Every structure is written in structure tokens, then in C-alpha cells.
């Protein structure tokens, strides 16, 4: 409670003071004169309130650590002052005089700058720092101390694992070491077995026939991710070694502290390594190959092996891959599930260990499956392909078919005969694609369209022309037809006249049959020629119709029909009376002349 109160009070005060006080930013350095590669510290201390710290320009130096923040608060005589310090541990890369530009901070809307720091970097730090001022050094001559990088294989396939080891060899004792530049595994996936943070123990080892004390600084399993010539950059370490002094020093301090030994700071570098990475062969590469390289086994199982499944009950499908290789890089499988089964993303659990033998262990993909409808479902076999380094060929592992027997769950069952209406579902769209091509076509030549061509218009004109031709022909034909008709009708009168004359003869002779025969012939023949009718057409109805059409008087027609009837009747009359012959003859002559007149 009390603490809380103080805290609140402090806050109140600090806010008051911070606005009353002007902020200052002080830059300081642990040393103004340093050697190449030597670590030193620069600190920026902010007094008062401020925010938005902008780091100084330190391009000439390597930042090894920082910014490290610490804050302090003190109250002296009721005046509270608050300070925050930001520190960097940096090292110079080359000799010369360098300026670390000002750092800046915003305080109450103003920008507060620190002073610039001038650092003098000299060539031989150990010599400069050695208390007896001795110049002779073996800093670069590292025959008694060196860093070696080596790999177990220098020619590998993409994805094949190899172990790279960084080892320090020494004949002298090492007081202190620090990693200044870690190797970069560009194009590799890497996993440390031994990392530089771990305490390295020195063991005697013979290298090139010389006895050394050796320690593994870093040991990493790496897997190239692409083909080509890949490089592992050098590792740089800053080592302080303790060497025996060659000439005796008169310094009191040396005698007191070192006892004839001298601590020398030096830099050791490993050589960059070139790794030849071969691409995986394209021949025989399975379709489902996903980059797995090594030696693997696969096991697939369903969590419910015995009991049958009910709808909406969950089951798990476990796919376990075990073996040696880039297990961590294997992606989850894409399951081809029937649409009625809902599948969820895989949960991945690893039991992977990284040893000097490489990465090995097992990775399990756990798929949760929920069948939504009852039925018997076939899960297609799961296949996994990898490249076997030792056989130098692809291997495909395949699981057996799984059959899911799904029964209707309780939720879907109808109870005590009541009808359960299930919600209707839309037809599930599984994909969207363009419609398939058409297989039947009627190819046409372009450019020679019939429509609009001269041929088209000619054909269009043709019926009109033909009709005109027909009209001309028809007119000619009807004209000639009319000619024959008029000739016939002209003749008809003559023939009728001749027949009538003949009939008159028979009348004089009183030859009854011959008279009526000739009389009938004369009137019939006349009508036939005159009206252009054949003998078959020569009925009384037709005659009257045609005559009427030609505008003949109805009375005249009636008289004609009457006369025709009379002469016909007389021809076949059983009693032959000669008395009517005279009147019949006269009637016939008058009717013909009447018709003749009408038809004119």
C-alpha cells in the first residue's frame, strides 16, 4: 500500500519535474583510443524526460551488443533526477580517427543532441595496451593458434545433410575468447549441435603431425536448399592468449600480476568453405515429391480402428514419418478427402534430435476428420516420396486404402416415429472452371460470303426475270391460242351452215332420222368450236355456264337449251312425227344466229 502511494507520488513529481527540467543527452566512451578489433563501450545518458532516441552513426564500427538500457532515479534534497542510459559495445574494424556522430532524442517537442565522440583506432592494440610498452607481437602469426572449418562431405545433393565443424587449435593457453563474426550459411537450412555459447573443453589432438589442444567451437548440421556452388563464410574470433614473455620486463606490475606472462589479443579466422551442391535428378521424379531427402519410413493409422464411426464423430488420421533426413522441412500432406468428410489442418508433433550423425527422429501429422454424412468412404492411399541418398534414386512410400464406415449418428436419427426434416443443403461447388470446349463444328471459309455477293443478287433477280420472261411467253401463247379459237369459231358458223343445209335437204326428202341427226350435229359442233369445248365437256350445264361467262343473254341460253333438248329428244323418240321438223329446223337456225349475234 505504502509502496503504491510512493509510486503514485513519484509519477506525479516526475511528470512535474520532467517538464520543468531541460533534458540533456551526454555521450561518453569507455576509451578514446582503442586497437583494431578491440571491444569498448559507448554510453548515452539521458537526464530528464525524453523519447524517440535516434542511434548515432556508427558505420565505422561493428556493433557487438546494444543498445542496452538501464535507468536510475535519485532524489537529492527533494529534487528528483531521472536518468536513462543506453550503451553499445562496439569494436573498430580498421585503424584511423573516427567520429561517432551525435545521437538525438526528442524532449518536450525539441530535439536534444549529444556531442560527437572521436575515437582513435590504432594498429596494435595489444602493444598499445601492454603495460610495458613492448612492440613486438605475433598477432597475425597464428601457427600456435588457429581456427579450422571443415565438413564431412563437400559434394552433396540438394537437401542432403552434412555437418560443418569449427574447431580451434592451440598450443598456448587461451584466457578469453569471443565470437566476432559468426559464419553465414547462405542457402542452407542449419541446426546447431554445438554452439559457441556452450563451454568448449580443450582436448589434445594431433593435426598435421603436431600436437595441439583442440576444442569444437561450433558444430552445425546444414542442408543445402538449392543447387550450385554454395559458400560458408569464415568465422572470426577474438582471442586473448597468454604467452610467455620473451624478454624480461622490468615492470613492477608485470612481475606482480603476470609473472613473466603476457596477454595478447589476437584475431583468428577460419577459411571460407565451398560446398558443391548437385541438383536432384529430374529423371523418375515422382509427382508428389516435395523435397524430402534422406531415408524415411511411413506409418499411417486411424484412431478408430475397431469401432465404427458415427456421423459428426471425430477421428484422427496419424501419418508418422520417421528416419534420417530433413524431417523438419517436410510439409503437411494434402489429403484428398471425399467432400462429405471435413478435414482440418494437420497438427505437427516432432521427435527430432540433431546429433553428429545428422538430423533424425520422427514427425507426426495429426489430421482431425469429421464425417458429416453416413456411408462408406474410401480414403485414397497417402503416398510420400523422398530421394534416397544411398541408392541415389527416388522412393515412394504408400499407405493402404482406408475405409471409413460411417453410421448415422444419434442427432440425425428420427425418434419415436416423428419425422425429422433435415435442412436442405446447396449443391457443393467443388471447383470453378471454364466450360469445356465444343467438339462439333461447322467450319466456314471466311471472306467468300455468299450473302451480299454479285451471285447472290443475280440469283435474287432471277425469279423476277424469269417471271417477266414467262409473262412475255404467256402473252404470245394466249394470242396464238386466241387465234385458233377465233379461226375455229369462224369456221363453226360455216360448218353449222353446211350442216343446216344438209339438214334442209333431209327435210325436203322427209328423212326423219338423218334430219335430226344432222340438226343435232350442227348445233353441237357449232357450240363445241365456238366455245372451245371438247365433246366430253359439252354438257348443258357447262354450255350455259360458259355462255353466261361470256355475257350471253339468259333468254337466248334458255332457248338454246330448249332447242338442244328438243332435237335430242326427237332423235330418240319412238314415234316419228314429221310435222315438227319444219319448226325445229327454224328454231335451230334462229338459235344459232342468236348465239352468233350474242358472241360477237
Amino acid at each position, binding site marked *: 500500500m505504502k509502496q503504491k502511494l510512493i509510486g503514485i507520488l513519484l509519477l506525479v513529481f516526475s511528470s512535474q519535474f520532467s517538464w520543468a527540467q531541460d533534458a540533456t543527452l551526454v555521450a561518453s566512451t569507455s576509451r578514446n583510443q582503442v586497437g583494431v578489433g578491440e571491444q569498448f563501450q559507448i554510453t548515452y545518458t539521458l537526464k530528464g524526460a525524453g523519447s524517440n532516441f535516434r542511434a548515432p552513426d556508427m558505420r565505422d564500427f561493428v556493433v557487438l551488443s546494444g543498445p542496452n538500457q538501464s535507468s536510475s532515479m535519485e532524489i537529492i534534497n527533494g529534487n528528483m533526477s531521472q536518468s536513462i542510459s543506453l550503451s553499445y559495445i562496439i569494436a573498430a574494424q580498421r585503424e584511423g580517427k573516427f567520429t561517432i556522430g551525435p545521437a538525438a532524442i526528442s524532449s518536450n517537442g525539441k530535439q536534444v543532441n549529444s556531442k560527437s565522440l572521436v575515437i582513435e583506432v590504432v594498429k596494435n592494440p595489444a602493444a598499445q595496451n601492454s603495460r610495458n610498452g613492448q612492440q613486438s607481437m605475433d598477432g597475425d602469426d597464428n601457427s600456435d593458434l588457429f581456427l579450422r572449418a571443415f565438413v564431412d562431405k563437400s559434394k552433396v545433393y540438394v537437401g542432403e545433410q552434412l555437418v560443418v565443424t569449427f574447431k580451434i587449435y592451440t598450443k598456448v593457453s587461451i584466457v578469453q575468447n569471443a565470437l566476432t563474426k559468426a559464419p553465414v550459411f547462405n542457402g542452407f537450412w542449419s541446426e546447431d549441435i554445438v554452439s559457441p555459447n556452450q563451454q568448449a573443453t580443450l582436448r589434445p589432438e594431433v593435426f598435421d603431425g603436431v600436437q595441439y589442444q583442440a576444442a569444437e567451437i561450433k558444430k552445425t548440421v546444414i542442408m543445402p536448399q538449392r543447387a550450385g556452388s554454395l559458400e560458408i563464410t569464415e568465422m572470426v574470433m577474438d582471442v586473448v592468449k597468454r604467452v610467455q614473455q620473451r624478454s624480461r620486463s622490468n615492470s613492477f606490475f608485470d612481475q606482480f600480476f603476470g609473472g613473466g606472462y603476457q596477454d595478447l589479443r589476437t584475431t583468428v579466422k577460419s577459411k571460407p568453405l565451398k560446398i558443391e551442391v548437385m541438383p536432384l535428378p529430374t529423371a523418375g521424379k515422382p509427382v508428389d515429391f516435395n523435397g524430402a531427402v534422406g531415408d524415411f519410413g511411413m506409418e499411417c493409422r486411424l484412431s478408430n480402428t475397431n469401432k465404427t464411426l458415427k456421423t459428426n464423430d471425430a477421428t484422427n488420421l496419424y501419418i508418422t514419418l520417421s528416419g534420417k533426413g530433413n524431417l523438419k522441412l517436410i510439409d503437411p500432406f494434402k489429403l484428398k478427402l471425399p467432400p462429405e468428410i471435413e478435414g482440418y489442418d494437420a497438427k505437427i508433433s516432432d521427435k527430432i534430435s540433431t546429433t553428429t550423425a545428422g538430423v533424425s527422429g520422427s514427425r507426426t501429422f495429426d489430421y482431425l476428420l469429421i464425417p458429416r454424412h453416413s456411408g462408406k468412404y474410401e480414403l485414397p492411399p497417402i503416398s510420400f516420396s523422398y530421394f534416397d541418398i544411398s541408392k541415389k534414386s527416388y522412393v515412394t512410400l504408400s499407405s493402404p486404402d482406408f475405409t471409413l464406415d460411417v453410421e448415422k449418428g444419434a442427432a440425425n436419427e428420427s425418434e419415436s416415429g416423428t419425422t425429422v426434416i433435415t435442412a436442405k443443403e446447396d449443391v457443393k461447388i467443388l471447383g*470453378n472452371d*471454364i*466450360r*469445356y*470446349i*465444343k*467438339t*462439333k*463444328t*461447322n*467450319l*466456314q*471459309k*471466311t*471472306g467468300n*460470303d*455468299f*450473302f*451480299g455477293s454479285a451471285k*447472290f443478287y443475280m*440469283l*435474287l433477280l*432471277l*425469279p*423476277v426475270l*424469269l*417471271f417477266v420472261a*414467262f*409473262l412475255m411467253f*404467256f402473252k404470245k401463247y394466249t394470242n396464238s391460242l386466241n387465234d385458233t379459237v377465233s379461226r375455229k369459231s369462224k369456221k363453226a358458223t360455216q360448218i353449222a351452215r353446211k350442216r343446216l343445209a344438209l339438214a334442209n335437204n333431209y327435210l325436203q326428202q322427209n328423212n326423219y332420222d338423218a334430219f335430226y341427226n344432222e340438226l343435232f350435229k350442227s348445233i353441237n359442233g357449232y357450240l363445241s368450236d365456238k366455245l372451245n369445248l371438247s365433246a366430253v365437256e359439252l354438257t348443258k350445264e357447262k354450255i350455259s355456264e360458259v355462255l353466261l361467262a361470256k355475257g350471253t343473254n339468259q333468254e337466248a341460253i334458255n332457248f338454246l337449251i330448249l332447242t338442244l333438248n328438243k332435237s335430242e329428244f326427237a332423235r330418240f323418240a319412238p314415234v316419228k312425227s314429221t310435222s315438227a321438223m319444219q319448226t325445229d329446223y327454224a328454231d335451230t337456225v334462229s338459235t344459232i344466229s342468236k348465239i352468233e349475234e350474242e358472241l360477237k
Partner: protein
Amino acid sequence: MKNILVLSFILLSAFTIKAGENDVFKIGNDAYLKNNYSSAITSYRQLINEGYQSSELYFNLANAYFKTDSIASAILYYEKAKKLAPADEDILANLKLANLKTIDKTETKEQLIFKSWWDNFVHSHSADDWGIACIVALFIAFSLLVVFRISSSTLSKQVFFGSFCLAVLIATTFYLLAKTNYSQQHAESEAILFNSSATIKSAPSENSKDLFIIHEGTKVNIIEKDNSWFRIRLYNGNEGWMKESAVKII
């Protein structure tokens, strides 16, 4: 005898040519089925280069272009197919999908149902077919007129003259159908942009002001042509000028 041989040879060669082009079409279809889209395109293009066309040929070619992600080409040939068969549902569906892949929004006007029926009817037969139908109808009409002239009775004269008028009307209809079909097919009023993007200018000159930018696959209406410049209009009514080389006419 010799004449018969020559005649049969001509007939035979005519048939083999006919089989050849359909074979090429089939080769293209088979390649498409095997997902070998580029060789399908080659086959279809060969037919087009030889001067053949049909809505199905354009449709299949457009499908193959679609599958190879050449969206502008796909749209161009869908539009060409649509010109020959404006109411074909497959063409419209695929064109819609292809238009989804373009950058610019395209708003196709919803067609009235009667309009689509009419289009369907007009393009149910080719212009040539309609033209032939028109000529046949005209022949029938004048045959009827001949019968009318010959017949003597008033009733049959009335009937035949009526039939003649009807046949002339039908022939005129066929002619108009052929004409509509023909002019719709030969209209060059639309184009598809093939450049990845084009800046539409306010005047037919490079120095004129930029108005707006359209992207590959966009359909434009051509209103006017001036040298190598097109005055174009978009579906939303925006107008401007662009280089004719950037587009391909449907």
C-alpha cells in the same frame, strides 16, 4: 469415261479437303483434352490462318488461351465467338470468367430476354443460309404469281395472289435476317486491349493530356478512326483517344 474419272477425282479431292480441316480441329481438341494447350492453340490458329471460322473454333481457341493465362487473347476470341453466336450460354459463361481476371472492372449490360431471343434467332443460321432461304422464297413467290396468271377462276386467282404476297413478305424477312446477321458479323466497332496498360489521351496526339488508364483485356468501343488513332468509349461512357496498335479488333 474420261470425263467421269475427272469428275470423280474432283469430287474426291473436295471431300478430302473437307475432312482435312475437321481433322485439324479434332487434333486441337485432343491436345486440349491432354492439357497440351499450346499445341491446341497451334492447331486452331492453323485453321484460322487457312481462312476458316466458326463460333466453336473461336470458343475452343479462347478456352486454350484462357488455360495458358493469355487473358487478353482469350477475351478477344470469346468475343469473336460471341459475334457469331451471341446467345450461346457457354461462350457467355466463359467470357464472364475471363473478364473476372482482368484488372479493369467490366460491366456487361444485362440483355433483355427478347433481345437475346432475337439474337439467338438471327444467328441460328448463317447469313448465307438466310440468303439462300430468301432466294428460294422469292422463287416460290414468283411461281405462285405464274400460277395466278394462268388460273382462270376468280377464287383461285385470289388465293394465289394472296400466297404470292405472303411469299414476298417471307422473302423480305429472310433478306433482313441475312442482312442483320451479316452486318453484326462484319461490324468492327469493338476491340480488346492487348498492351498491359494504355493511357487514354484527350486528343489523337502523344502530347495531349492523359485522361485515364485502362489495362490488358479491357473491351473498348471504337467510335472513330483518325490515322493510327482510335477514338474509344468504355462501358461507363468515358471517352478518349488511343493508339490503334494497342488493341485488336474483335
